[in-house]
């Protein structure tokens, strides 16, 4: 764990992301909700993080900022050495497309597309030809163990199967960083273990994995842990890196 002080501003080369005093405030009426209230830490390439904390502590807010879906209200967020504040919407979109993979608690598959088509969406935006897309979708489906359901719609799958599809889709662009917001939140423990095994495999292949969870036994899979409370970092351990 590196808690940065203001005099060390530029990030190190092996840091994928680095947050400096990042705040995210929401104005609701005349009240200000401090979802994140001054968070500083950095993540190295190839690490495996769990973000923990009670409900409402700002975990999802943090993950959204890390995933470039949201921007800090103040503070600096460095992405591969570039300040995100200087990037426009298209650049952030392209970054998500090329470098990030998302897995959500509620799967977030597109209901009118088949399993194969869902997995192909990122490749479509990357401009991959159809045959290549098809082949890669098949390979990914096989990897997550869903290849027998390629022509099915998400509504015809179980929760665990849907999450496998979501993981396959998150991997479709060969992302360097995998972001997961409570990926096992809607799954039974047996399926959760299978999904976590997949994450472990990806981590071992050198991907950076950032996982939001409030279940301690899921957090155990991660190699480093950060605990949030009321928008600030309560503790941070980088133990088993």
């Amino acid at each position, binding site marked *: 764990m590196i808690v940065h002080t203001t005099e060390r501003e530029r990030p190190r080369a092996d840091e994928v992301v680095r947050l400096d005093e990042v705040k995210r405030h929401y104005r609701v009426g005349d009240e200000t909700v401090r979802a994140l209230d001054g968070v500083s830490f950095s993540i190295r390439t190839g690490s495996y993080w769990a973000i923990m904390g009670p409900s409402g502590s700002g975990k999802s807010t943090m993950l959204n900022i890390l995933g470039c879906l949201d921007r800090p209200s103040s503070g600096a967020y460095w992405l591969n050495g570039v300040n995100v504040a200087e990037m426009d919407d298209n650049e952030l979109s*392209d970054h998500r*497309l090329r470098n990030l993979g998302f897995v959500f608690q509620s799967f977030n598959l597109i209901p009118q597309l088949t399993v194969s088509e869902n997995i192909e969406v990122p490749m479509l935006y990357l401009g991959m030809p159809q045959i290549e897309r098809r082949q890669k979708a098949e390979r990914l489906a096989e990897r997550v163990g869903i290849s027998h359901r390629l022509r099915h719609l998400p509504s015809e799958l179980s929760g665990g199967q849907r999450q496998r599809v979501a993981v396959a889709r998150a991997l479709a662009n060969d992302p360097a960083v995998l972001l997961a917001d409570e990926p096992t939140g809607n799954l039974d423990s047996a399926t959760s273990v299978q999904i976590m095994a997949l994450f472990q495999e990806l981590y071992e292949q050198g991907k950076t994995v950032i996982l939001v969870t409030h279940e301690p036994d899921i957090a155990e899979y991660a190699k480093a842990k950060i605990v949030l409370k009321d928008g600030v970092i309560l503790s941070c351990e980088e133990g088993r890196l």
Partner: protein
Amino acid sequence: MNQVFYFWPFVKLGLTDVWRHKTRSFLTMLGMVFGVGSVIAMLAVGEGASQQALESIKRLGSENIMVMSVKPTDEEGSNTGSQRGRLAVYGLLYDDEARIRETVPGVVLTVPARMTRRVARLNERQLEMRVVETVPEWFAVVQRPVLAGRTLAPNDLQMRANVCVLTEHGVRRLLAAEHMVGQRIRISSGVFEVIGIVKNETGGTVRAPDSEADAYIPLTTGTKLFGEANIRYSAGGMEGEKVELSQIIVRMAETAFVEPASKAIETVLARFHKKKDYRIDVPLTLLREAERTKRTYNIVLGAIAGISLLVGGIGIMNIMLASVTERTKEIGIRRAIGARRSRIVVQFLINTCVLSIGGGVVGLLVGVAIPLLITAFTGMPTVVRPYSLLLAFGISAGIGIVFGLYPAMRAASLDPIDALRHE
């Protein structure tokens, strides 16, 4: 090529989306179907009508001026008052023809004609025909293909020969026989040898110099046999009119002379006619008028079709806005995956275009079918021009883009996180 790869999945997505909401899509498309259908159908009807008018005017020739006898409007009042019989004397004179030929500059030819309706007989068949007493030059000015035999010759005129040329419709209705040339038919009190048959041009419009069943005879023969007075006996007594010439066709050396010459003719005639018992028609002017009318017609028509397309477009926009709301989550997912705003815009635009072009294509079929039905049932000519199909297609695609833009922009402007959270 790459672009096609890129767009196709979205076209497919649009199509499946349309298919999933069949009823909704169908109702939305109806606006476009009627809009595009009415554009094509109305253009086809308008085109048919104006083409017919233009053709009959063009056939009169743009170098020609038609001078016609008209019964003066004040004739009733100025008459002798005799109830048993009266003879209306009016119209153009042989002298008028000579004066026009000699005084108006640029005149190449004048063709006098007298037209009356008379009954023609062959054996027991009979048919009322329009008898055109004229000179051989008629056929040079009013060009019509000769189907059999020959037309009038200068010699016929000189000899006051009892010969006639018939139009094919006249022949068919009088005879239904092929070997008409050489036959003898009776017209009123005279017996005429049929020397030729000419083709009918498209159906007689008011201004056309020929009608369905015409018999052309030498002017001199007509004068000899029938005189210049055309008298009808009826239950109320005798009624008749004396007209020396019904019509004079004046041919000018070139189109540019036509308009000044028509003014000169007007002056010449006005000097010798106390009453306005003639009318001067300039086909060129009629042509211009017809073209102007056509333009006006097209504008009115365009406005009506435009309004129906506008209504159709608003319907599509409405549905697309609903669809954006419905698919908010999908938009969030796509944005999270890394789709730029512009790609969301493209996706929704394609979706709208699938709807509007789909409606446009159905409307196109409807628009082609309606004129066919109109022609089949009413006999009214209709012409579907290829450009109107292109226009309809362009319009429907344009409507898709114009009315799809706002919903698409709205979809793209959604905040990804808010969109993802949407249920």
